[in-house]
């Protein structure tokens, strides 16, 4: 219940962002009323609204993540939560839930009216809704947690930023190297699996880092930054190690790519 109390408190201050979703929806419906070929217009608007819905959810999640704790810390308002009998997990999860809820609802408000009007609700609800919601939600969660961590790193202005830069650089360089190896072996499906695995592992690491920032950093922005930096460095290291093992396994068990071409084939 305490988590929901925190969620509700976060909503109180930010629910106005839902107007963005609603506003886009209304604009889209007005735009549709001027179209002559309604069939094509509806199809266009459906793709647009789904795209805009997901995009809006992601932007809201990103902005929410960038401010949900670090702004309170910078404005010295985080103490309000710490002075209540709330566990760090309740504070953090309450805020994350609020961000996800707002992002999701704004995305739905932006996309659902056009879908319903276009007569696609059956197809949408029965076939694609799960994957669209999944993409929207997973992306929102990742961006929210990522920008929470980045905002802590940026706002604390401590020397731990150097470790962050090393971590990010090493991580992206490592991912690029692993990707190139898989692409060189034409293992595109395995490449997608690798990226999805890194994304899932990264989201988990960002979640742990965010929680530790609240639990161990509390009102101390620099201390929180230290926990975020160390957790992310460890996460990046573990993910690269797992990625390297996975790539090595794939390359070992994959038949070699045949590059030979025969003249007879060419003339055919």
């Amino acid at each position, binding site marked *: 219940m305490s988590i929901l109390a925190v969620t509700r408190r976060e909503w109180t201050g930010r629910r106005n962002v839902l107007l963005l979703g609603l506003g886009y929806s209304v604009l889209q419906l007005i735009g549709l009323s001027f179209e002559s070929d309604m069939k094509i217009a509806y199809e266009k608007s459906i793709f647009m609204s789904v795209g805009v819905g997901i995009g809006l959810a992601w932007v809201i999640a990103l902005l929410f993540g960038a401010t949900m704790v670090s702004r309170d810390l910078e404005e010295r308002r985080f103490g309000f939560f710490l002075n209540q*009998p*709330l566990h760090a997990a309740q504070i953090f999860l309450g805020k994350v839930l609020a961000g996800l809820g707002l992002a999701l609802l704004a995305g739905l408000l932006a996309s659902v009216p056009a879908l319903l009007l276009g007569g696609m609700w059956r197809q949408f609800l029965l076939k694609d809704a799960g994957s669209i919601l999944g993409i929207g939600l997973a992306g929102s969660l990742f961006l929210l947690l990522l920008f929470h961590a980045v905002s802590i790193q940026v706002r604390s202005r401590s020397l731990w930023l150097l470790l962050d830069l090393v971590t990010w650089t090493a991580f992206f360089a490592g991912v690029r190297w692993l990707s190139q190896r898989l692409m060189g072996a034409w293992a595109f499906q395995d490449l997608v699996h690798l990226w999805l695995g890194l994304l899932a592992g990264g989201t988990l690491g960002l979640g742990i880092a965010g929680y530790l920032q609240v639990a161990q950093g*509390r009102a101390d922005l620099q201390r929180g930054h230290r926990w975020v930096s160390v957790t992310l460095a460890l996460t990046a290291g573990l993910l690269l190690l797992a990625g390297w093992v996975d790539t090595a396994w794939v390359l070992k068990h994959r038949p070699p790519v045949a590059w030979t071409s025969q003249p007879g084939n060419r003339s055919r």
Partner: protein
Amino acid sequence: MISQVETLPVACRQVGVRYGRTQAVEEATFQVEPGQVYALLGRNGSGKTSLVRCLLGHQKPTAGRVELYGQDVWSARQALMHRVGVVAEEPDAPPLMTARQLVRFCGGLYPSWDQAGVDERLDRFRIPLDLPFGRLSRGQKGQVALALALGPEPDLLVLDDPTLGLDAVARREVYDELLGELAERGTTVFITTHDLAGIEGLADRIGILHQGRLLVDASLEDLKARHRKVSWAPSQAVAPTDLAPFAPLWSRTGSLGGEAILTQGDPSQLPGLQVHPLSLEELFVALVGEAEVAS
């Protein structure tokens, strides 16, 4: 059997806080007895807020340990906050929440909540319940924070400069509220303040923090008994050597006569000296001034 240490509302042991190369608090050791009003005084930047942050588990001390009711506050913050009411130096409630929403939010977090008491206080303070917290005046924000802090009927009340920026009437209301709380429930109070005149009638024990060091930790009664304020007319020739046996903490001579704060002996023995009651403010200025001269 519960030992005395376990029941102590506050126990700070060798607490140190360091920010990089700056030592904000150095080996602060003190304790607060149940039902006591402990006033921590100090100039701006003396380390009071850092100490309060450690005391509330917002910040981990770089050295030492802070215990509330026998439990380390850093590791048991959540459980301890059921027993602690807090009024922060800068009212830190979310600015877009109204007083009504804040009461609902905080009330839902505690197992017991004195809703009638909170409503009565907010009514007495004439707080507009549906105005966002951020739009209330500085005094009203402090009053809302105090009403919320008293809502769970805490055993310990921690007030970080609650009268900062308040006018005389609002300050009086805060102290009246505290007096009422003390009389009714015997709540232990830990308060930091610059309002020495206001706290003088309330405090049992005084701590003076200066440049991160706890200069004084004594009962107000003892402090006043140990220090005497004397004055003399211009016609009286009181030389510094005359005062030396009384170990003056501070003295001043001018065209209107002189005055001094003495730390030992009975100054009435010296002819021409008049002994006056000593205010906390005079004592604070003398002690901190002396420490500044010494450092």
